[in-house]
């Protein structure tokens, strides 16, 4: 149903985050002829065998599943690049490395549907998983360093990671803000919205879906 995910868990469900990532452009090589497609989302040109073309991810996956094309994996999804990124992420005290905003979703969709198009697929997949682990760990550590800031800058964090951290970060930052401004907070409490508060304040790590 095009409706509501439970707002107390996280604003966007993982499926919705994936939905947003599916508009990213990727390169494919069609193996058949097809007329241009005039979608609401845009026009995608003639499909000619062996001529690479850029299409949104959802379209690419649909074509791939019907055996009509092969993927050209994006530049960042190579063993060399990922090894480099992983090394850099593992440095103590390092910042987050630059990765595409939707790297988790793109990688996941490619692994599920286009394994044969990625050279050294198993290596690449384990690298991406390791990178995810290291970054999540770093995120958790960073969360412990929030102080009374009113804005927290997060460089190079990806969409899925933001979505995971959002509920906890929100409540933590709100708590800090409230305690920093005691007079304003007392005022706000009498007019605050009557939403039931959750009993448990601990951040819940969502189970990883396999």
């Amino acid at each position, binding site marked *: 149903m095009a409706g509501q995910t439970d707002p107390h868990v996280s604003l966007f469900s993982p499926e919705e985050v994936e939905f947003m990532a599916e508009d990213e452009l990727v390169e494919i090589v069609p193996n058949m002829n097809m007329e241009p497609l005039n979608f609401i989302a845009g*026009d995608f040109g003639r499909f000619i065998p062996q001529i690479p073309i850029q299409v949104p991810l959802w379209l690419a996956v*649909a074509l791939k599943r019907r055996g009509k094309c092969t993927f050209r994996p994006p530049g960042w999804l190579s063993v060399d690049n990922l090894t480099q990124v992983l090394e850099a992420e593992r440095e103590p005290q390092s910042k987050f490395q630059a990765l595409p905003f939707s790297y988790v979703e793109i990688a996941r969709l490619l692994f599920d549907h286009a394994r044969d198009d990625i050279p050294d697929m198993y290596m690449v997949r384990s690298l991406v998983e390791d990178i995810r682990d290291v970054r999540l760990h770093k995120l958790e550590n960073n969360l412990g360093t929030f102080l009374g800031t*009113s804005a927290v800058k*997060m460089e190079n964090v990806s969409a899925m990671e933001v979505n995971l951290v959002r509920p906890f970060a*929100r409540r933590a930052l709100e708590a800090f803000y409230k305690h920093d401004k005691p007079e304003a907070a007392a005022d706000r409490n*009498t007019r605050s919205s009557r939403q039931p508060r959750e009993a448990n304040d601990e951040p819940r790590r969502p189970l990883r879906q396999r």
Partner: protein
Amino acid sequence: MASSSDMGSADFESLSSTSDVELLKRAWRNEKAAPEILPYEGDLVERAKGQIELVEENIEAYVENGIDPLVVSLYQMDLDRTQFLLRSYLRVRLLKIEKFMFHSLKSEEAESRLSEQEKVFARRCADDLAKHFEESVLRKLPENYQSVLKQSLISEVDDMVPEPHLDTFVACRSKSHFTLNLYEEGESTQTEEMYRGDLYFIRYKIVKGAIESGKMDLI
């Protein structure tokens, strides 16, 4: 069909390359992440509805003419995606109206953010709810406490009306380079430089203006 947006501001790049689907996605995302109801994107919704109807007719025509089922199914997918965005956008707004029923009818400004149908919905909801409260509880309370909106006659403000929590922290990304005042007027004027593509967790109140003018996006 890709059509360009007609926002007044925005740089040339976004004017020429933003399709309606992109705009709808942005509106949907912002609406989901914001704690209050944002102004209604009437034009966008109308255009989207028009395009959806057009594509639905086309698909019927294709099926009759025996066009390659693959092509038909691809058009159907695109249609489904756009329909999802539109429906979810409207549903998120309805949910917020239900949550903040009395608040959205209180002031001109709040009411102006709703579409005509949403206003009708909000009024009916508010009337029904008020009636329900009165009949089940309020009539039986002592005279001074019988109002739906105020705790008692001596309250100066409508303190029984839940208000959107504007101090919630939201994740947002800036689309262009500008400086943002981190505090409200009258407090310290600490500013922050926002470069294109920077991601921040900030209080909603501070970025409200930037979001409405299109300089930032909620994530």
